[in-house]
């Protein structure tokens, strides 16, 4: 089984601080990590490989520093790593990112399964996985919480829904995105870490993937960010005191005032 895992390098939100004056992220000194949902994708790939054999390639679009994320995946047991790195990719939204990753994956040759985390913790869009599947025109199953069965040419997954789960059977190749319920990612091993240090990274640039230049980077991104703002902080509110009748009357009066005030604006 030829498995491709897409990962993203993101800032570790656990130690992110917000600049109270500008309301922007303070990125200085913040560590970069593999997007936590992608860790489940890596682990699921490793488990499937342990069962069926084959090869796992991890692919990441990002700057040179994303190399560290790829090596961490290799230290867990992934076989090969590919970094998609080019100035032309800069400023990509989810549409352009999906297109770029799909072109990169096509370049790598035959594959049976693509696994992505359900979303990245920095953008939270959950669009890139489905976008890759759409670009490659292959079936997709999102929010997978269990691999029920997987064989050479078909697989059956449990897909999480708000009410419970659905069981979906699909031919391969296909793409899945996974949720945290699917497994517990392993820690890296020492031998894996030693291998990761020496293993070569394949770099793919815009030229390598035969992409249409207009579909890459900022130019290929239809998303426009109009404004980024922090919602106002919640104020303390008001606590009404007294016996029930008294409090209810006060509340009704207060609500009336608010309705009147709202009507005036």
């Amino acid at each position, binding site marked *: 089984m030829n498995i491709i895992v897409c990962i993203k390098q993101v800032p570790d939100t656990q130690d992110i601080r917000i600049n109270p004056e500008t309301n922007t992220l303070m990125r200085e000194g913040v560590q970069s990590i593999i997007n936590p949902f992608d860790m489940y994708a890596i682990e699921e790939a490793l488990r499937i490989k342990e069962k069926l054999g084959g090869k796992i390639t991890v692919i990441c679009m990002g700057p040179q520093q994303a190399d560290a994320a790829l090596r961490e995946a290799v230290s867990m047991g992934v076989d090969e790593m590919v970094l998609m790195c080019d100035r032309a990719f800069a400023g990509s939204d989810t549409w352009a990112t999906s297109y770029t990753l799909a072109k990169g994956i096509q370049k790598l040759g035959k594959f049976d399964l693509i696994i992505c985390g359900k979303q990245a913790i920095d953008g939270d869009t959950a669009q890139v996985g489905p976008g890759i599947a759409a670009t490659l025109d292959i079936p997709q199953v999102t929010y997978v919480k269990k691999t029920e069965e997987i064989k050479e040419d078909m697989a059956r997954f449990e897909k999480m829904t708000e009410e419970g789960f659905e069981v979906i059977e699909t031919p391969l190749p296909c793409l899945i995105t996974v949720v945290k319920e699917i497994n517990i990612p*392993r*820690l*890296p*091993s*020492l*031998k894996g*870490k*030693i291998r990761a240090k020496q293993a070569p990274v394949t770099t793919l640039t815009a030229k390598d993937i035969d992409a249409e230049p207009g579909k890459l980077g900022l130019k290929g991104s239809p998303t426009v960010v109009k404004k980024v703002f922090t919602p106002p902080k919640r104020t303390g509110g008001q606590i009404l005191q007294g016996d029930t009748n008294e409090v209810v009357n006060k509340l009704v009066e207060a609500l009336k005032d608010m309705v009147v005030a709202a009507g005036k604006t």
Partner: protein
Amino acid sequence: MMDYLLTEQQIMVRDLARKIAKEKIAPVAAEHDEKETFPWDIMKVMAESDLCGVYIEEKYGGLGGGAMELCLVTEELSRACGGIAICFAATALGTYPIILFGNDEQKQKYLPDIASGKKLAAFALTEAGAGSDAGAIATTARKEGDYYVLNGVKQWITNGGEAEVYSVIAMTDREKGARGASFFIVEKGTHGFDFGKKEKKLGIRASATRELVFNECKVHKDNLLGREGMGFIVAMKTFDKSRPGVAAQAVGIAQGALDHAVKYSRERKQFGKTISSFQGLQFMIADMATQIEAARALTYAVARMVDSGARDVSKESAMVKLFASDTAMKVTTDAIQVLGGYGYMRDYPVEKYMRDAKITQIYEGTNQIQRNIIALEVLKEQLRK
């Protein structure tokens, strides 16, 4: 941070052990302590991460490191739980006799499974009547054809019952006294080899401590380590190598207690300020941190001396075990003081560090025995001048 000029590989080992301690051990340490359950969950993680064989030669499946790597791992694990750390370090203690005195067949047979984490090991010397006075060992090994027949009871054996491989000292010739002891490798499941009750301890409660009972237990002569009569040399050389490991455990326990104390001092408010703003408390923290760093520096220095192949490290390894364990006892006691009443409660993790620290002053030679060794060596040095 003090720079100890670790190699790239040592940093990798330390960081991985630190990650395991933080992510896997810290969340379960209190539960293993409370329920006195053996941490097989963590041993499995250690095995999957290749950490079990850091001090074992590469050709036997290890990483090819030595006492330094053993210390780095033990220290990091101890920072989260001294009891879980000792399950790993006691395996090293049980393995050192094989590393130091085993022949190639013995090494081939036992080391790969220990390096991969498939098997744990244990070291069996102490008996009811023989601890510090190792010459009083009553367990015997009688030669019968190709076999030795062991009889006797070993007491307080760490990893007892959980380990698969035991390094056991027994008297092959009582007439010869100290020169009549020999070391054997005994596998769990050998006929005539059983385990007594699991002991209830003050600290390191995740680790298992049991009696080993030998009753006409037949061990093949291929399992003799070194030669007959070398038992005490095996024991002493093993301790020389392993004592920095106890020191590392003590340093880790002390550091873990300090970490908690510092964090608490920045959160706890009294008189309208965090208690970390009071100089009386700051001085305590300064002393604790300084003592730990001194113990760590000595630990690494002695571990490196051991790894350099120095012939005689008895004095230094006694010094480091003594100093680091006394430091751990002092620092963990002070850590409780920093937390005050909360520190004394089991709901907070700090009292456990003090309970875990105490054993480091006792096992692998009490600190009084360490002082004997140190004094003897110092006095001998004067004679040689």
